[in-house]
Protein backbone atom coordinates (compact mmCIF):
# COMPACT_ATOMS: atom_id res chain seq x y z
CA UNK A 1 0.00 0.00 0.00
CA UNK A 2 2.69 2.43 1.02
CA UNK A 3 4.92 1.40 -1.84
CA UNK A 4 6.41 3.66 -4.44
CA UNK A 5 3.06 4.66 -5.94
CA UNK A 6 3.22 7.94 -7.86
CA UNK A 7 1.65 10.77 -5.92
CA UNK A 8 -0.15 12.39 -8.84
CA UNK A 9 -2.92 14.89 -8.31
CA UNK A 10 -5.81 12.98 -9.91
CA UNK A 11 -5.03 9.97 -7.71
CA UNK A 12 -5.11 12.09 -4.56
CA UNK A 13 -8.43 13.55 -5.63
CA UNK A 14 -9.89 10.14 -6.38
CA UNK A 15 -8.79 8.92 -2.93
CA UNK A 16 -10.32 11.95 -1.29
CA UNK A 17 -13.64 11.66 -3.02
CA UNK A 18 -14.03 7.91 -2.53
CA UNK A 19 -16.11 8.31 0.65
CA UNK A 20 -18.91 10.62 1.61
CA UNK A 21 -17.12 12.12 4.62
CA UNK A 22 -14.12 12.83 2.39
CA UNK A 23 -16.35 14.54 -0.17
CA UNK A 24 -17.98 16.71 2.50
CA UNK A 25 -14.61 17.67 3.93
CA UNK A 26 -13.19 18.40 0.49
CA UNK A 27 -16.10 20.66 -0.42
CA UNK A 28 -15.87 22.58 2.88
CA UNK A 29 -12.12 23.11 2.52
CA UNK A 30 -12.43 24.18 -1.14
CA UNK A 31 -15.20 26.60 -0.23
CA UNK A 32 -13.06 28.12 2.50
CA UNK A 33 -10.02 28.40 0.26
CA UNK A 34 -11.95 30.08 -2.54
CA UNK A 35 -13.61 32.50 -0.11
CA UNK A 36 -10.20 33.31 1.35
CA UNK A 37 -8.80 34.03 -2.11
CA UNK A 38 -11.80 35.97 -3.40
CA UNK A 39 -12.73 37.75 -0.14
CA UNK A 40 -11.27 41.17 -0.99
CA UNK A 41 -13.38 41.16 -4.17
CA UNK A 42 -16.62 39.87 -2.71
CA UNK A 43 -16.67 41.49 0.75
CA UNK A 44 -19.52 44.03 0.53
CA UNK A 45 -17.95 46.49 2.96
CA UNK A 46 -14.62 47.63 4.31
CA UNK A 47 -13.98 45.23 7.22
CA UNK A 48 -12.17 47.90 9.23
CA UNK A 49 -14.71 50.68 8.67
CA UNK A 50 -16.19 51.70 12.02
CA UNK A 51 -19.68 53.14 12.02
CA UNK A 52 -20.71 54.81 15.30
CA UNK A 53 -24.28 55.02 14.02
CA UNK A 54 -24.56 51.26 13.47
CA UNK A 55 -23.10 49.53 16.52
CA UNK A 56 -24.31 46.07 17.60
CA UNK A 57 -27.00 45.93 14.92
CA UNK A 58 -28.74 42.61 14.42
CA UNK A 59 -28.52 40.98 10.98
CA UNK A 60 -30.28 42.96 8.28
CA UNK A 61 -30.15 43.45 4.52
CA UNK A 62 -27.44 46.08 4.89
CA UNK A 63 -25.39 43.93 7.31
CA UNK A 64 -26.11 40.24 6.63
CA UNK A 65 -24.36 39.04 9.80
CA UNK A 66 -25.02 42.22 11.82
CA UNK A 67 -22.38 44.58 13.18
CA UNK A 68 -19.92 44.34 16.09
CA UNK A 69 -19.32 46.70 19.00
CA UNK A 70 -17.51 49.19 16.78
CA UNK A 71 -20.16 49.09 14.07
CA UNK A 72 -18.01 47.02 11.71
CA UNK A 73 -19.71 44.67 9.24
CA UNK A 74 -19.44 41.12 10.65
CA UNK A 75 -20.10 39.49 7.24
CA UNK A 76 -17.15 41.21 5.58
CA UNK A 77 -14.93 40.55 8.59
CA UNK A 78 -15.87 36.85 8.63
CA UNK A 79 -15.11 36.53 4.90
CA UNK A 80 -11.67 38.09 5.37
CA UNK A 81 -10.95 36.76 8.85
CA UNK A 82 -9.21 33.55 7.84
CA UNK A 83 -6.77 34.92 5.28
CA UNK A 84 -3.85 35.95 7.43
CA UNK A 85 -4.11 32.88 9.70
CA UNK A 86 -4.22 30.58 6.65
CA UNK A 87 -1.21 32.33 5.13
CA UNK A 88 0.80 32.02 8.36
CA UNK A 89 -0.28 28.37 8.69
CA UNK A 90 0.79 27.60 5.12
CA UNK A 91 4.24 29.14 5.47
CA UNK A 92 4.81 27.62 8.92
CA UNK A 93 3.72 24.19 7.65
CA UNK A 94 6.27 24.36 4.85
CA UNK A 95 9.01 25.14 7.38
CA UNK A 96 7.86 22.47 9.84
CA UNK A 97 7.64 19.77 7.17
CA UNK A 98 10.99 20.71 5.64
CA UNK A 99 13.18 20.60 8.73
CA UNK A 100 11.09 17.98 10.54
CA UNK A 101 11.18 15.42 7.77
CA UNK A 102 14.83 16.08 6.92
CA UNK A 103 15.92 15.54 10.52
CA UNK A 104 13.57 12.58 11.05
CA UNK A 105 14.69 10.74 7.91
CA UNK A 106 18.36 11.37 8.64
CA UNK A 107 18.01 10.29 12.29
CA UNK A 108 16.42 7.00 11.22
CA UNK A 109 18.99 6.48 8.48
CA UNK A 110 22.08 7.21 10.57
CA UNK A 111 20.73 5.58 13.73
CA UNK A 112 22.91 4.81 16.71
CA UNK A 113 24.01 7.51 19.10
CA UNK A 114 23.19 10.46 16.83
CA UNK A 115 19.61 9.20 16.55
CA UNK A 116 19.34 8.74 20.32
CA UNK A 117 20.62 12.26 21.05
CA UNK A 118 18.33 13.89 18.48
CA UNK A 119 15.28 12.06 19.78
CA UNK A 120 16.08 12.93 23.41
CA UNK A 121 16.19 16.62 22.48
CA UNK A 122 12.98 16.41 20.49
CA UNK A 123 11.34 14.57 23.38
CA UNK A 124 12.41 17.18 25.90
CA UNK A 125 11.24 20.06 23.75
CA UNK A 126 7.89 18.41 23.24
CA UNK A 127 7.42 18.30 27.02
CA UNK A 128 7.15 22.07 27.04
CA UNK A 129 3.57 22.73 25.94
CA UNK A 130 3.69 24.32 22.46
CA UNK A 131 1.88 27.40 23.62
CA UNK A 132 4.49 28.22 26.25
CA UNK A 133 7.25 27.58 23.75
CA UNK A 134 5.60 30.04 21.36
CA UNK A 135 4.93 32.53 24.16
CA UNK A 136 8.58 32.44 25.14
CA UNK A 137 9.51 33.61 21.65
CA UNK A 138 6.61 36.06 21.34
CA UNK A 139 7.68 37.69 24.62
CA UNK A 140 11.19 38.15 23.24
CA UNK A 141 10.37 39.10 19.65
CA UNK A 142 7.11 40.94 20.16
CA UNK A 143 3.87 39.67 18.65
CA UNK A 144 3.86 39.93 14.89
CA UNK A 145 2.65 37.66 12.14
CA UNK A 146 6.13 37.63 10.63
CA UNK A 147 7.69 36.31 13.83
CA UNK A 148 4.99 33.66 14.23
CA UNK A 149 5.96 31.86 11.01
CA UNK A 150 9.43 30.62 12.05
CA UNK A 151 8.35 30.12 15.67
CA UNK A 152 5.37 27.91 14.75
CA UNK A 153 7.37 26.26 12.00
CA UNK A 154 9.95 25.27 14.56
CA UNK A 155 7.55 24.12 17.33
CA UNK A 156 5.33 22.07 15.04
CA UNK A 157 8.29 20.53 13.23
CA UNK A 158 9.10 18.57 16.40
CA UNK A 159 6.22 16.11 15.94
CA UNK A 160 7.12 15.82 12.25
CA UNK A 161 10.57 14.57 13.28
CA UNK A 162 8.84 11.77 15.18
CA UNK A 163 6.57 10.78 12.35
CA UNK A 164 9.22 10.99 9.61
CA UNK A 165 11.60 8.91 11.72
CA UNK A 166 8.97 6.25 12.45
CA UNK A 167 7.91 6.09 8.79
CA UNK A 168 11.53 5.82 7.65
CA UNK A 169 12.43 3.11 10.16
CA UNK A 170 10.02 0.83 8.30
CA UNK A 171 12.28 1.05 5.26
CA UNK A 172 15.91 1.46 6.37
CA UNK A 173 16.55 -2.26 6.68
CA UNK A 174 14.82 -3.16 3.39
CA UNK A 175 16.90 -4.66 0.61
CA UNK A 176 16.71 -1.69 -1.76
CA UNK A 177 18.16 0.65 0.88
CA UNK A 178 20.88 -1.81 1.82
CA UNK A 179 21.65 -2.24 -1.88
CA UNK A 180 22.04 1.50 -2.30
CA UNK A 181 24.38 1.57 0.68
CA UNK A 182 26.47 -1.21 -0.84
CA UNK A 183 26.54 0.64 -4.15
CA UNK A 184 28.24 3.41 -2.19
CA UNK A 185 25.53 6.05 -2.38
CA UNK A 186 25.85 8.93 0.05
CA UNK A 187 23.38 9.32 2.91
CA UNK A 188 21.80 12.34 1.27
CA UNK A 189 21.29 10.50 -1.97
CA UNK A 190 19.75 7.52 -0.15
CA UNK A 191 17.49 9.84 1.83
CA UNK A 192 16.29 11.61 -1.30
CA UNK A 193 16.09 8.87 -3.90
CA UNK A 194 15.30 5.76 -1.84
CA UNK A 195 13.52 6.86 1.34
CA UNK A 196 11.69 10.08 0.52
CA UNK A 197 9.53 8.57 -2.25
CA UNK A 198 8.40 5.86 0.17
CA UNK A 199 7.48 8.09 3.07
CA UNK A 200 6.00 10.80 0.85
CA UNK A 201 2.41 9.71 1.38
CA UNK A 202 2.72 9.66 5.16
CA UNK A 203 4.40 13.04 5.12
CA UNK A 204 1.80 14.57 2.82
CA UNK A 205 -1.05 13.43 5.07
CA UNK A 206 0.86 14.68 8.10
CA UNK A 207 1.46 18.02 6.37
CA UNK A 208 -2.25 18.53 5.79
CA UNK A 209 -2.90 17.75 9.46
CA UNK A 210 -0.10 20.06 10.59
CA UNK A 211 -1.68 22.84 8.58
CA UNK A 212 -4.94 22.63 10.47
CA UNK A 213 -3.17 22.38 13.86
CA UNK A 214 -1.05 25.43 13.08
CA UNK A 215 -4.16 27.28 11.91
CA UNK A 216 -5.72 26.50 15.29
CA UNK A 217 -2.55 27.66 17.04
CA UNK A 218 -2.57 30.97 15.16
CA UNK A 219 -6.24 31.50 15.96
CA UNK A 220 -5.68 30.66 19.63
CA UNK A 221 -2.78 33.11 19.78
CA UNK A 222 -4.88 35.79 18.08
CA UNK A 223 -7.57 35.09 20.66
CA UNK A 224 -5.00 35.71 23.41
CA UNK A 225 -3.84 38.90 21.68
CA UNK A 226 -0.50 37.49 20.53
CA UNK A 227 -1.30 36.56 16.95
CA UNK A 228 -2.79 38.49 14.05
CA UNK A 229 -2.87 42.12 15.19
CA UNK A 230 -5.71 44.56 14.57
CA UNK A 231 -6.79 46.18 12.29
CA UNK A 232 -6.40 43.02 10.17
CA UNK A 233 -9.61 41.06 10.82
CA UNK A 234 -9.08 37.56 12.21
CA UNK A 235 -11.48 34.93 13.54
CA UNK A 236 -9.67 34.35 16.85
CA UNK A 237 -9.44 38.07 17.45
CA UNK A 238 -13.11 38.59 16.49
CA UNK A 239 -14.17 35.89 18.98
CA UNK A 240 -12.11 37.47 21.77
CA UNK A 241 -13.60 40.83 20.87
CA UNK A 242 -17.23 39.65 20.83
CA UNK A 243 -17.09 37.63 24.05
CA UNK A 244 -17.99 40.54 26.27
CA UNK A 245 -21.11 41.30 24.24
CA UNK A 246 -22.34 37.76 23.59
CA UNK A 247 -25.65 38.47 25.29
CA UNK A 248 -26.42 41.58 23.23
CA UNK A 249 -24.84 40.62 19.94
CA UNK A 250 -24.43 36.84 19.67
CA UNK A 251 -24.07 37.11 15.86
CA UNK A 252 -20.70 38.85 16.23
CA UNK A 253 -19.50 35.76 18.12
CA UNK A 254 -21.21 32.91 16.31
CA UNK A 255 -20.14 33.59 12.71
CA UNK A 256 -16.38 33.62 13.28
CA UNK A 257 -16.76 30.51 15.52
CA UNK A 258 -18.69 28.72 12.78
CA UNK A 259 -16.15 29.74 10.15
CA UNK A 260 -13.13 28.50 12.08
CA UNK A 261 -14.80 25.30 13.34
CA UNK A 262 -16.16 24.35 9.93
CA UNK A 263 -12.77 24.80 8.30
CA UNK A 264 -11.01 22.65 10.88
CA UNK A 265 -13.70 19.95 10.87
CA UNK A 266 -13.72 19.92 7.06
CA UNK A 267 -9.95 19.57 7.01
CA UNK A 268 -10.13 16.67 9.47
CA UNK A 269 -12.78 14.84 7.44
CA UNK A 270 -10.79 15.29 4.25
CA UNK A 271 -7.48 14.18 5.77
CA UNK A 272 -9.14 11.17 7.43
CA UNK A 273 -10.59 10.03 4.13
CA UNK A 274 -7.32 10.62 2.34
CA UNK A 275 -5.30 8.75 4.96
CA UNK A 276 -7.69 5.79 4.86
CA UNK A 277 -7.60 5.66 1.07
CA UNK A 278 -3.80 5.74 0.84
CA UNK A 279 -3.42 3.27 3.70
CA UNK A 280 -1.34 5.71 5.68
CA UNK A 281 -1.51 5.39 9.43
CA UNK A 282 -3.30 8.59 10.34
CA UNK A 283 -1.46 10.33 13.11
CA UNK A 284 -4.09 11.62 15.52
CA UNK A 285 -3.51 14.96 17.10
CA UNK A 286 -0.59 14.30 19.40
CA UNK A 287 -1.77 15.48 22.80
CA UNK A 288 0.13 18.61 23.60
CA UNK A 289 1.59 19.08 20.18
Amino acid at each position, binding site marked *: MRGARRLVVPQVLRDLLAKRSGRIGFVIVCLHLSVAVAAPMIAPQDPTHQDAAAMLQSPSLAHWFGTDRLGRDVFSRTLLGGREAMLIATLATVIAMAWGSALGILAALIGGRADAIVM*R*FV*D*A*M*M*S*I*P*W*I*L*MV*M*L*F*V*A*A*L*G*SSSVALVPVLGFSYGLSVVYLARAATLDFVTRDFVVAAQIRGHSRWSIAFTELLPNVRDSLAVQGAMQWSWIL*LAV*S*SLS*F*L*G*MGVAPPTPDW*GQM*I*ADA*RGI*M*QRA*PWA*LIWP*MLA*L*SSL*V*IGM*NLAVDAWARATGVERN*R*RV*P*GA
Partner: protein
Amino acid sequence: MAAVLLQRIGLALVTMVIIAVVVFFALELMPGDACSVNLGRGASDSMLAACHTRLGLDQPPIWRFVTWAGDFLRGDLGISMQRERPIAEIVGWRLRNTLILAGVTSVIGIPLALGLGVLAGLNPDGPLDMAISGVAIFAMTVPEFISGTLMILVFSVILGWAAGVVTIGYKAPAFELVKASILPAATLIFILAAHILRMVRASVVEVMQSDFVQMARLKGASRRRVIWHHVVPNALLPAISIIGLTMAWLLGGVVIVESVFNFPGLGRLAVDAVADQDLPLVQAIALLFGLIYVLTNLGADLVALILNPRLRTRRQ
Protein backbone atom coordinates in the same frame (compact mmCIF):
# COMPACT_ATOMS: atom_id res chain seq x y z
CA MET B 1 12.72 -4.03 38.21
CA ALA B 2 15.16 -1.75 40.06
CA ALA B 3 17.20 -1.26 36.89
CA VAL B 4 14.13 -0.26 34.91
CA LEU B 5 13.07 2.11 37.68
CA LEU B 6 16.48 3.77 37.78
CA GLN B 7 16.50 4.03 34.01
CA ARG B 8 13.14 5.83 33.98
CA ILE B 9 14.16 8.23 36.73
CA GLY B 10 17.48 8.90 34.99
CA LEU B 11 15.71 9.65 31.71
CA ALA B 12 13.34 12.04 33.48
CA LEU B 13 16.32 13.88 35.02
CA VAL B 14 18.05 14.17 31.64
CA THR B 15 14.83 15.50 30.11
CA MET B 16 14.52 18.11 32.87
CA VAL B 17 18.08 19.31 32.25
CA ILE B 18 17.43 19.58 28.51
CA ILE B 19 14.22 21.53 29.13
CA ALA B 20 16.11 23.97 31.35
CA VAL B 21 18.81 24.37 28.69
CA VAL B 22 16.23 24.97 25.96
CA VAL B 23 14.19 27.45 27.99
CA PHE B 24 17.31 29.38 28.96
CA PHE B 25 19.26 29.38 25.72
CA ALA B 26 16.29 29.87 23.36
CA LEU B 27 16.15 33.43 24.62
CA GLU B 28 19.93 33.84 24.43
CA LEU B 29 19.66 33.34 20.68
CA MET B 30 17.06 36.07 20.30
CA PRO B 31 17.94 39.67 19.66
CA GLY B 32 17.58 41.66 22.88
CA ASP B 33 17.43 40.46 26.46
CA ALA B 34 15.16 40.85 29.49
CA CYS B 35 16.29 44.42 30.00
CA SER B 36 16.07 45.77 26.46
CA VAL B 37 12.72 44.05 25.88
CA ASN B 38 11.27 45.39 29.12
CA LEU B 39 12.68 48.92 28.96
CA GLY B 40 11.82 49.35 25.30
CA ARG B 41 13.70 51.06 22.52
CA GLY B 42 13.95 54.43 24.20
CA ALA B 43 16.09 53.23 27.10
CA SER B 44 19.40 55.03 27.54
CA ASP B 45 22.69 53.14 27.69
CA SER B 46 23.19 53.93 31.35
CA MET B 47 19.70 52.60 32.22
CA LEU B 48 20.40 49.41 30.28
CA ALA B 49 23.76 48.99 31.97
CA ALA B 50 22.22 49.48 35.41
CA CYS B 51 19.54 46.90 34.62
CA HIS B 52 22.15 44.47 33.29
CA THR B 53 24.14 44.74 36.50
CA ARG B 54 21.02 44.34 38.63
CA LEU B 55 19.97 41.14 36.84
CA GLY B 56 23.54 39.92 36.45
CA LEU B 57 23.21 40.01 32.65
CA ASP B 58 26.80 41.27 32.38
CA GLN B 59 28.01 37.79 33.39
CA PRO B 60 28.88 35.15 30.77
CA PRO B 61 25.82 33.08 29.65
CA ILE B 62 27.08 29.71 30.93
CA TRP B 63 27.65 31.14 34.40
CA ARG B 64 24.20 32.78 34.35
CA PHE B 65 22.63 29.49 33.35
CA VAL B 66 24.28 27.68 36.24
CA THR B 67 23.17 30.28 38.79
CA TRP B 68 19.67 30.45 37.27
CA ALA B 69 19.20 26.68 37.38
CA GLY B 70 20.82 26.45 40.83
CA ASP B 71 18.59 29.17 42.25
CA PHE B 72 15.59 27.47 40.67
CA LEU B 73 16.39 24.23 42.51
CA ARG B 74 16.53 26.14 45.78
CA GLY B 75 13.11 27.67 45.08
CA ASP B 76 14.38 31.10 44.02
CA LEU B 77 12.84 31.75 40.60
CA GLY B 78 14.40 35.18 40.09
CA ILE B 79 12.84 38.65 40.05
CA SER B 80 9.92 39.65 37.86
CA MET B 81 10.75 42.62 35.61
CA GLN B 82 7.33 44.20 35.56
CA ARG B 83 6.23 43.48 39.09
CA GLU B 84 9.58 44.05 40.81
CA ARG B 85 8.86 41.16 43.17
CA PRO B 86 10.35 37.67 43.59
CA ILE B 87 8.80 35.36 40.99
CA ALA B 88 8.35 32.57 43.53
CA GLU B 89 5.94 34.83 45.44
CA ILE B 90 3.90 35.66 42.33
CA VAL B 91 3.86 32.12 41.03
CA GLY B 92 3.12 30.29 44.31
CA TRP B 93 -0.60 31.03 44.70
CA ARG B 94 -1.29 30.70 41.00
CA LEU B 95 0.43 27.36 40.89
CA ARG B 96 -1.91 26.22 43.66
CA ASN B 97 -4.93 27.51 41.72
CA THR B 98 -3.87 25.76 38.53
CA LEU B 99 -3.27 22.54 40.46
CA ILE B 100 -6.79 22.82 41.91
CA LEU B 101 -8.20 23.24 38.40
CA ALA B 102 -6.12 20.36 37.05
CA GLY B 103 -7.10 18.26 40.08
CA VAL B 104 -10.85 18.81 39.61
CA THR B 105 -10.42 18.08 35.91
CA SER B 106 -8.51 14.83 36.46
CA VAL B 107 -10.64 13.51 39.34
CA ILE B 108 -13.86 13.86 37.32
CA GLY B 109 -12.49 13.63 33.78
CA ILE B 110 -10.31 10.53 33.93
CA PRO B 111 -12.87 8.07 35.42
CA LEU B 112 -15.51 9.53 33.10
CA ALA B 113 -13.25 9.03 30.08
CA LEU B 114 -12.35 5.46 31.08
CA GLY B 115 -16.02 4.57 31.60
CA LEU B 116 -17.20 6.10 28.33
CA GLY B 117 -14.29 4.56 26.45
CA VAL B 118 -15.15 1.07 27.69
CA LEU B 119 -18.85 1.62 26.92
CA ALA B 120 -18.04 2.76 23.38
CA GLY B 121 -15.55 -0.04 22.81
CA LEU B 122 -17.82 -2.87 23.96
CA ASN B 123 -20.24 -2.25 21.10
CA PRO B 124 -18.13 -0.67 18.38
CA ASP B 125 -20.21 1.13 15.74
CA GLY B 126 -23.36 0.70 17.83
CA PRO B 127 -25.57 3.74 18.43
CA LEU B 128 -23.94 4.49 21.81
CA ASP B 129 -20.45 4.32 20.27
CA MET B 130 -21.51 6.55 17.38
CA ALA B 131 -22.84 9.16 19.81
CA ILE B 132 -19.83 9.06 22.16
CA SER B 133 -17.24 8.97 19.38
CA GLY B 134 -19.01 11.69 17.41
CA VAL B 135 -18.98 14.09 20.35
CA ALA B 136 -15.38 13.11 21.12
CA ILE B 137 -14.19 13.90 17.60
CA PHE B 138 -15.95 17.26 17.76
CA ALA B 139 -14.26 17.97 21.11
CA MET B 140 -10.84 17.02 19.76
CA THR B 141 -11.21 19.09 16.60
CA VAL B 142 -12.62 22.39 17.79
CA PRO B 143 -10.09 24.65 19.55
CA GLU B 144 -10.19 25.15 23.32
CA PHE B 145 -11.15 28.78 23.17
CA ILE B 146 -14.24 27.98 21.09
CA SER B 147 -15.40 25.12 23.36
CA GLY B 148 -14.83 27.36 26.37
CA THR B 149 -16.78 30.23 24.85
CA LEU B 150 -19.58 27.83 23.89
CA MET B 151 -19.68 26.58 27.51
CA ILE B 152 -20.15 30.18 28.71
CA LEU B 153 -22.79 30.80 26.04
CA VAL B 154 -24.79 27.68 26.92
CA PHE B 155 -24.38 27.26 30.69
CA SER B 156 -24.02 30.86 31.75
CA VAL B 157 -25.80 33.10 29.25
CA ILE B 158 -28.62 30.81 28.10
CA LEU B 159 -29.19 28.49 31.08
CA GLY B 160 -27.79 30.72 33.81
CA TRP B 161 -26.41 27.80 35.86
CA ALA B 162 -22.95 29.13 36.60
CA ALA B 163 -21.04 32.37 36.39
CA GLY B 164 -19.30 32.78 33.03
CA VAL B 165 -16.11 34.38 34.25
CA VAL B 166 -14.23 33.96 37.50
CA THR B 167 -14.13 37.14 39.55
CA ILE B 168 -12.36 35.98 42.72
CA GLY B 169 -8.76 36.95 43.43
CA TYR B 170 -5.78 34.63 43.24
CA LYS B 171 -5.49 34.40 47.03
CA ALA B 172 -9.07 33.18 47.54
CA PRO B 173 -9.56 30.11 49.77
CA ALA B 174 -9.32 26.72 48.10
CA PHE B 175 -13.01 25.77 48.31
CA GLU B 176 -14.02 28.97 46.51
CA LEU B 177 -11.59 28.12 43.75
CA VAL B 178 -13.09 24.65 43.45
CA LYS B 179 -16.48 26.31 42.96
CA ALA B 180 -15.02 28.78 40.47
CA SER B 181 -13.42 25.99 38.48
CA ILE B 182 -16.72 24.30 37.50
CA LEU B 183 -17.00 25.71 33.97
CA PRO B 184 -13.25 25.85 33.21
CA ALA B 185 -12.92 22.27 34.43
CA ALA B 186 -15.95 21.23 32.37
CA THR B 187 -14.25 22.65 29.27
CA LEU B 188 -10.99 20.86 30.03
CA ILE B 189 -12.84 17.60 30.82
CA PHE B 190 -14.75 17.83 27.54
CA ILE B 191 -11.49 17.80 25.58
CA LEU B 192 -9.32 15.68 27.89
CA ALA B 193 -11.95 12.95 28.12
CA ALA B 194 -12.28 12.90 24.34
CA HIS B 195 -8.57 12.14 23.90
CA ILE B 196 -8.48 9.46 26.57
CA LEU B 197 -11.73 7.74 25.63
CA ARG B 198 -10.69 7.38 22.00
CA MET B 199 -7.58 5.49 23.13
CA VAL B 200 -9.50 3.36 25.63
CA ARG B 201 -12.12 2.55 22.99
CA ALA B 202 -9.47 1.40 20.53
CA SER B 203 -7.79 -0.64 23.21
CA VAL B 204 -11.08 -2.31 24.31
CA VAL B 205 -11.92 -3.18 20.70
CA GLU B 206 -8.50 -4.80 20.33
CA VAL B 207 -8.73 -6.79 23.57
CA MET B 208 -12.26 -7.98 22.71
CA GLN B 209 -10.83 -9.69 19.62
CA SER B 210 -7.95 -11.33 21.45
CA ASP B 211 -7.62 -15.07 21.92
CA PHE B 212 -7.98 -15.05 25.68
CA VAL B 213 -11.33 -13.26 25.50
CA GLN B 214 -12.49 -15.75 22.84
CA MET B 215 -11.34 -18.53 25.15
CA ALA B 216 -13.20 -17.10 28.14
CA ARG B 217 -16.35 -16.82 26.06
CA LEU B 218 -16.03 -20.37 24.77
CA LYS B 219 -15.57 -21.62 28.33
CA GLY B 220 -18.99 -20.16 28.95
CA ALA B 221 -18.00 -17.27 31.20
CA SER B 222 -20.81 -14.76 31.61
CA ARG B 223 -20.60 -11.54 29.65
CA ARG B 224 -20.20 -9.57 32.85
CA ARG B 225 -17.31 -11.79 33.99
CA VAL B 226 -15.59 -11.54 30.60
CA ILE B 227 -15.86 -7.77 30.64
CA TRP B 228 -14.77 -7.16 34.23
CA HIS B 229 -12.15 -9.88 34.59
CA HIS B 230 -10.67 -10.16 31.13
CA VAL B 231 -11.36 -7.08 29.03
CA VAL B 232 -11.29 -4.09 31.39
CA PRO B 233 -8.00 -4.77 33.25
CA ASN B 234 -6.12 -5.46 30.03
CA ALA B 235 -7.65 -2.57 28.12
CA LEU B 236 -7.00 0.02 30.82
CA LEU B 237 -3.26 -0.68 31.18
CA PRO B 238 -2.22 1.16 28.00
CA ALA B 239 -4.53 4.00 29.01
CA ILE B 240 -2.26 4.88 31.93
CA SER B 241 0.60 6.08 29.76
CA ILE B 242 -1.88 7.91 27.53
CA ILE B 243 -3.14 9.77 30.59
CA GLY B 244 0.44 10.83 31.32
CA LEU B 245 0.87 12.11 27.76
CA THR B 246 -2.47 13.89 27.84
CA MET B 247 -1.18 15.91 30.80
CA ALA B 248 1.01 17.77 28.30
CA TRP B 249 -2.11 18.81 26.47
CA LEU B 250 -3.86 19.65 29.74
CA LEU B 251 -1.02 21.98 30.74
CA GLY B 252 -1.12 23.76 27.38
CA GLY B 253 -4.92 23.86 27.30
CA VAL B 254 -4.92 25.37 30.77
CA VAL B 255 -3.26 28.50 29.38
CA ILE B 256 -6.11 29.15 26.97
CA VAL B 257 -8.96 27.94 29.16
CA GLU B 258 -7.77 30.04 32.12
CA SER B 259 -7.71 33.07 29.86
CA VAL B 260 -11.21 32.35 28.53
CA PHE B 261 -12.65 32.13 32.05
CA ASN B 262 -10.36 34.69 33.68
CA PHE B 263 -9.25 31.96 36.11
CA PRO B 264 -6.40 33.24 38.33
CA GLY B 265 -3.90 30.48 37.55
CA LEU B 266 -0.42 29.99 36.16
CA GLY B 267 -1.62 29.91 32.54
CA ARG B 268 -3.25 33.30 32.66
CA LEU B 269 -0.23 34.65 34.48
CA ALA B 270 1.88 33.47 31.55
CA VAL B 271 -0.36 35.36 29.11
CA ASP B 272 -0.12 38.50 31.25
CA ALA B 273 3.65 38.10 31.51
CA VAL B 274 3.95 37.97 27.72
CA ALA B 275 1.80 41.08 27.39
CA ASP B 276 4.07 42.83 29.93
CA GLN B 277 7.18 41.54 28.13
CA ASP B 278 8.42 40.11 31.42
CA LEU B 279 10.96 37.56 30.13
CA PRO B 280 12.21 36.16 33.47
CA LEU B 281 8.62 35.40 34.51
CA VAL B 282 7.75 33.72 31.20
CA GLN B 283 10.93 31.63 31.45
CA ALA B 284 10.15 30.55 35.01
CA ILE B 285 6.61 29.51 34.08
CA ALA B 286 7.76 27.59 30.99
CA LEU B 287 10.30 25.71 33.09
CA LEU B 288 7.68 24.96 35.76
CA PHE B 289 5.24 23.57 33.19
CA GLY B 290 8.00 21.43 31.70
CA LEU B 291 8.89 20.02 35.11
CA ILE B 292 5.25 19.28 35.98
CA TYR B 293 4.92 17.44 32.69
CA VAL B 294 8.02 15.34 33.24
CA LEU B 295 6.94 14.47 36.79
CA THR B 296 3.40 13.43 35.80
CA ASN B 297 4.78 11.30 33.00
CA LEU B 298 7.27 9.69 35.34
CA GLY B 299 4.39 9.04 37.74
CA ALA B 300 2.28 7.46 35.00
CA ASP B 301 5.26 5.34 33.92
CA LEU B 302 5.83 4.08 37.46
CA VAL B 303 2.13 3.26 37.98
CA ALA B 304 2.11 1.36 34.69
CA LEU B 305 5.26 -0.45 35.79
CA ILE B 306 3.66 -1.51 39.08
CA LEU B 307 0.41 -2.65 37.48
CA ASN B 308 1.86 -4.34 34.42
CA PRO B 309 4.51 -6.98 35.10
CA ARG B 310 5.19 -7.28 31.35
CA LEU B 311 6.92 -3.89 31.33
CA ARG B 312 9.36 -4.80 34.07
CA THR B 313 12.02 -6.39 31.92
CA ARG B 314 14.56 -4.06 30.44
CA ARG B 315 13.86 -3.21 26.83
CA GLN B 316 16.28 -1.81 24.33
